[in-house]
């Protein structure tokens, strides 16, 4: 009898919080930290979001992915879904100088000192981006309030996410492209690049870097930062709903990523 009891006592039937394995890891991590988790209806929406990202083939290309628009509070909003899924050493972002959190919307900067530190050193920690791999980088965010500058890197003056992109309905994907020349490189027309009024190269849905030499020669870009740009010279007043950092994405993947994030945000 005692043997049976001991066996049954050791069988811990742990009920999954979500049937989506990677999202379940996020929820489990949050609970282990003592953080609130989203409402049941929002859990369903976030399961759908992560499923859509996987279907699109985008999820595995992420180095980091965070959804700030949640009803679970700012602790859950700062969780890095991808690095939790990957069981990375660092799994959370840090709020610096108190950006304003709004439930179901995200974080807004104050324009003077507040920002979000992703704690992702893109030259050292990122599997999809690092020294020698920068030309394959893609990163972006969704926002509800725009600003001239919205995200950048701690050791990098350029490669910021700006509002220079046209017609992207609040979602930007800034990609480093392997520029070999300058603004007027001969291949520009053959690849149907155009320049907008702010000098940002546009290629369909992808906002490309205006500096052809900066991104792919930088040896230490530092950490990816949101609402802090140009190596800390500019602090943004943008309001950000989600942020990601990945390998370079195809046009279709960018479209699917934007669609998934927008569908989530407009459903909450």
């Amino acid at each position: 009898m005692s043997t049976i009891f001991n066996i049954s006592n050791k069988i811990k039937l742990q009920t999954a919080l979500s049937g989506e394995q990677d999202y379940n890891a996020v929820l489990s991590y949050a609970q282990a930290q003592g953080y609130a988790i989203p409402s049941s209806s929002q859990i369903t929406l976030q399961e759908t979001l992560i499923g859509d990202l996987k279907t699109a083939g985008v999820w595995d290309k992420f180095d980091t992915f965070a959804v700030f628009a949640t009803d679970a509070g700012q602790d859950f909003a700062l969780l890095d879904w991808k690095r939790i899924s990957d069981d990375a050493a660092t799994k959370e972002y840090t709020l610096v100088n108190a950006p304003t959190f709004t439930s179901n919307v995200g974080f807004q900067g104050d324009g003077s000192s507040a920002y979000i530190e992703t704690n992702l050193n893109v030259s050292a920690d990122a599997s999809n981006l690092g020294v020698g791999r920068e030309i394959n980088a893609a990163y972006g965010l969704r926002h509800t309030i725009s600003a001239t500058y919205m995200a950048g890197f701690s050791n990098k003056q350029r490669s910021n996410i700006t509002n220079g992109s046209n017609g992207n309905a609040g979602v930007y994907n800034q990609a480093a492209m392997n520029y070999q020349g300058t603004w007027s490189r001969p291949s520009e027309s053959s690849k149907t690049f155009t320049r907008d009024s702010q000098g940002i190269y546009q290629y369909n849905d992808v906002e490309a870097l205006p500096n052809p030499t900066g991104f792919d020669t930088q040896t230490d870009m530092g950490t990816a930062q949101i609402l802090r740009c140009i190596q800390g010279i500019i602090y943004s007043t943008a309001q950000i709903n989600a942020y990601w950092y990945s390998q370079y994405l195809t046009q279709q993947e960018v479209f699917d990523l934007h669609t998934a994030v927008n569908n989530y945000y407009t459903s909450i």
Partner: protein
Amino acid sequence: MIVLKATQAQYDALDGYQNGNNLLKFAKDGNDNWIVGTAVLTNSAFSEINTQLNNLEQIEYVPVPIQE
């Protein structure tokens, strides 16, 4: 926009304060002052150092010029 300016001694005492996922880290303004936004005064994460934060001088924010 009003921000909070720290002396070097205040900077040394407060910079790097962390409570959970909330960090206080002074930034430089356009006059090379150490500053931080006023949101830290009302954020509960910084309540432990609220008295010291309230002692910071309130000044008008001067942006750092962007060098192209």
